[in-house]
């Protein structure tokens, strides 16, 4: 049985249809990346899966006992709130000390456990959020544009870490990303979203699909070529 199955999902905001007829299933251990233009409903899809958005139609079926770890796009912490990383890890439920230390180590932030949340850099904050998501030993890790604001080396190392965590824990990963070239290299499956699922499959299949090209142009193929053998490259796109 899949970890999670989405059937005919419809989501509306103020009468506007953000997502419609979305079907998707996620299996154990696979890394799935959702790509799509701004406003295509990527974040909404993730927020619906974690229960922050109520769908207006369709359903989301969790495998019984499914544990989800969620890493939000960003977490602006008001400077008025004093909160150490370690205390943050124990919200809303206190976790065993050893588990907290292990999760922090896995996300490579063990040394800043006593730091104040409000003073962390963007990259440190992302890894703390990742550590917190890993704390309940999730079957499915959900990340919403986790590398936003990181530079290229930071982005690359973040995705390497995700891949390593998947290898160690066997958790599935569902994430949204704009870093198309990294996504293509690091994902098992890519879902191209634009209100509905335009295409869904292995990165090389999606990259060559007409629906994907219509959204992103074939220019992104250039970036993909850094990582994969290229056989559909075109030079006739004047504008990107």
């Amino acid at each position, binding site marked *: 049985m899949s970890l999670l199955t989405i059937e005919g999902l419809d989501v509306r905001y103020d009468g506007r249809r953000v997502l419609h007829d979305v079907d998707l299933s996620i299996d154990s251990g696979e890394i799935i990346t959702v790509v799509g233009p701004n406003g295509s409903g990527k974040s909404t899809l993730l*927020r619906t899966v*974690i*229960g*922050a958005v109520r769908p207006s139609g369709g359903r989301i079926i969790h495998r019984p006992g499914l544990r*989800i*770890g*969620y890493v*939000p796009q960003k*977490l602006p*912490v*008001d400077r*008025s*709130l*004093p*909160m*150490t990383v370690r*205390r*943050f890890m*124990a*919200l*809303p*439920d*206190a976790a065993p000390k050893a588990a907290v230390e292990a999760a922090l180590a896995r996300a490579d932030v063990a040394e800043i456990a006593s730091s*104040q949340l409000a003073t962390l850099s963007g990259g440190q904050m992302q890894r703390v959020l990742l550590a917190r998501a890993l704390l309940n030993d999730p079957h499915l890790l*959900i990340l919403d544009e986790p590398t936003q604001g990181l530079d290229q080396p930071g982005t690359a190392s973040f995705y390497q870490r995700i891949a390593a965590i998947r290898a160690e824990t066997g958790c599935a990963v569902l994430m949204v990303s704009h870093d198309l070239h990294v996504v293509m290299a690091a994902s098992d499956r890519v879902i191209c979203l634009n209100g509905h699922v335009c295409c869904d499959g292995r990165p090389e299949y999606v990259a060559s699909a007409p629906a994907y090209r219509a959204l992103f142009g074939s220019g992104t193929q250039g970036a993909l070529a850094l990582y994969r053998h290229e056989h559909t490259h075109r030079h006739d796109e004047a504008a990107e």
Partner: protein
Amino acid sequence: MILFDSLVMRAAAAGLGVALVAGPLGCFVVWRRMAYFSDATAHASILGVALALVLDVPVFGGVLVVAFAAALALWAFGARSLGQDTGLGVMAHSTLAFGLVAVSFLPSVRIDISAYLFGDILAVRERDLALIWGGGAIVLALLAWRWSRLLIATLGADMAHAAGVNPRREELLLTVALAILVAAAIKVVGALLVGALLVIPAATARGLTRTPEAMAATAALIGGASALGGIWMSWEFDTPTGPSIVCWTALAFVLSQLRGVIR
């Protein structure tokens, strides 16, 4: 001497009862940037005073109902189209204005409105004390019960959802707590200065602490000490008590800021 004892002891008990609760609750007001929200709720309570007097029901009840209704309305319309700030401004000033106008229709012998605007802690009676401590105990119990959930909801709504916490429910809980505190505090510091008792001790405690729990406890201590200082000042120099209490919190705030600068 007996007069001094009972009067000042009652005032001290009332001041402590409100300040010890306003500290921790005020931390959430500061963290969530609800300072204007709490002001709007408090200002609305003047309308509650007026309605209670017109309907001849206890003032505490009138204030509680109206403060709760106002806070609930603000909560319900919270993130809607009108800028949060504007909506709060409309609510805060219009309820205060309607309250003051309503009071003016009452025979003037029946009410000294300044007692409700700025508090009249030396007029606190045993029954008021029971309401203040009872209401305060309820607020503290609510905060303690939901503490971790309130914190995660304060950090981020999506984060709370993912952890199985409904952030809107936690907001509603804070709203209820705020209405209870306003009703308890109106006799002590008055509708116009409740917000000060919420925000200033919490803001003072921020610079001195590293965890949310320590900040809440420190804010309660600062508020409590200020309440005692204000009552002493009021007795000694015949100053208005509510404003005197707030002056002490402001002094504590300035000192805590200076400490930050000097270090």
